[in-house]
């Protein structure tokens, strides 16, 4: 192959070792420094990072603005709790069921949503999330209504009890790393490129022979599955789920995390989730004007750095270099 056209590949092996070591340090260091509550906070951040990453797949790469992503997060969580508690089976089956339910729902809901573009997509995704939210509130015998449903006990994994903060943290970290590696692969795959192409110009994609609806649907399903995994982990984390997990506000929060960190980049949503939840945890204790601060973050983000903190940082870095 001519290297003139192809972007150069980095030397793989050494880089991999380096990344793996940094990753291991990043993952393991909180275990040494933090105790129970601190680890819990980071665990929650990582769970929402997974959900934000999943939204970023369709939003950042696929160009689909969903205001109903809480649907898959919430379904994953609900299914995990309900399967584990109502049928008295292993929570691991619950987790699998949670991911499965979210994926199935994403395929069905996606089939409706991907027919529409732009605002239509936005409205349709919102309608389905609201529908599920109403269902969770109304179907009291199954879901416990607006009071939610709980009682899930975290299982064991390789002899470690996940109900301790440490193992749960590591388990979630493994999940996040796995999701990120998967995302990295998808983005670089022929499918990932087809998705970006669909975002950039679906007319052109049609004309050169891609069935764009099908590509969008596949992306939607993958995204729903990952969000379902996030929901299932959240069910493990909390042992409890309520209709809030399916709400308008939850969808908005996930969206904010992606935008805040930077859409269309691998690590942006992770950064966004971390920043948002950290600020929330710190600020909400000290002031009742929490909403004001969230609002200002939103506005500042849109006005000053529409490509997120990651994009903002990159721009700063580049302009620094130029000088």
């Amino acid at each position, binding site marked *: 192959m001519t290297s003139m056209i192809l972007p150069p590949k980095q030397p793989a092996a050494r880089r991999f070792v380096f990344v793996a070591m940094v990753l291991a340090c990043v993952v393991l260091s909180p275990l040494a420094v933090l105790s129970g509550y601190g680890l819990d906070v980071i665990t929650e951040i990582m769970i929402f990072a997974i959900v934000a990453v999943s939204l970023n797949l369709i939003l950042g790469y696929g160009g689909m603005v969903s205001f109903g992503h809480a649907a898959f997060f919430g379904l994953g969580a609900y299914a995990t709790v309900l399967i584990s508690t109502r049928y008295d089976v292993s929570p691991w089956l619950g987790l699998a069921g949670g991911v499965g339910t979210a994926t199935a729902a994403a395929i069905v809901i996606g089939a409706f949503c991907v027919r529409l573009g732009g605002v239509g997509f936005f409205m349709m995704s919102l309608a389905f999330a609201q529908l599920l939210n109403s269902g969770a509130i109304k179907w009291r015998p199954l879901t416990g209504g607006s009071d939610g449903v709980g009682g899930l006990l975290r299982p064991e994994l390789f002899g470690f009890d996940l109900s301790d903060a440490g193992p749960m943290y590591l388990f979630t970290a493994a999940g996040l790393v796995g999701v990120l590696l998967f995302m990295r692969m998808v983005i670089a795959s022929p499918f*990932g490129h087809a998705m970006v192409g669909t975002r950039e110009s679906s007319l052109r994609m049609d004309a050169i022979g891609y069935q764009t609806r099908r590509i969008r649907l596949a992306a939607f399903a993958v995204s729903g599955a990952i969000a379902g995994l996030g929901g299932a982990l959240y069910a493990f984390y909390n042992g409890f789920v309520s209709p809030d997990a399916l709400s308008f506000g939850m969808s908005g929060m996930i969206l904010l995390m992606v935008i805040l960190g930077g859409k269309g980049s691998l690590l942006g949503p992770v950064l966004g989730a971390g920043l948002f939840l950290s600020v929330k945890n710190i600020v909400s204790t000290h002031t009742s004007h929490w909403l004001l601060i969230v609002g200002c973050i939103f506005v500042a983000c849109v006005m000053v750095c529409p490509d997120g903190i990651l994009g903002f940082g990159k721009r700063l870095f580049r302009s620094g270099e130029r000088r």
Partner: protein
Amino acid sequence: MLRLENISKAFGSLVVSNSVTLDVTAGQRHTIIGPNGAGKTTLINQIGGQLSPDSGKIFLHGQEITRLSAPLRARAGLARTFQKNTLFQALSVFENVRLGAQAAHGRTYDLFRSWRSDTGVLAQAEQAIEQMNLGRIAAQPVGKLSYGDLRQVEVAVALATSPTVLLLDEPTSGLSPSETAQMIDVLRALPREISILMIEHDMEVVFSIADHITVLYYGEVIASGAPRNVADDPRVQEVYLGAPQ
């Protein structure tokens, strides 16, 4: 290769295609000309599948494709360019072209492999880029290209899908004389395995490429044949040059 039978299309009371019938034979360089509003682009859109005709039939390699969606037509070997820029702005020239090649040859639903591993697609893309002499700008994002380069990328993306029939919607419009000359060279160099149906305004381009000309006037075919015959047709002269001299 490509055959249109009595294609008609109207937007409300405005008839844009009136029982158009035309044939593109294998290896032909077929050009559609006609004044503004003759319904040329609408016709291309109907062939490409972006619009569907009200009545009539379209055949590709003898198979009827009238009801086929645009992507399926593309896979059957029909490629087209657009007049307005619908390229993937955020991607590089190479990636644009590579997406064209992937559509025809690649495993689009493969999530678990890098795009680099699909060497067949890469080779196809590189070939299209070389055909259009785009090597020098292959790594640049399309959003930053000049207009002339964009027209060439248009053709390269279409070529990358390895078409048997190529539809070109005014490939030289807006180009400078030197760019136009370049485009003519490139198009003339294309192998005869590819049949071309082209809309063009510039008569110099038409006469240096076309071996068959169809004249469209208000949605209707008023003449069709070899360039010399068409040029001598009194109706064509009337339409094009106003009153006969």
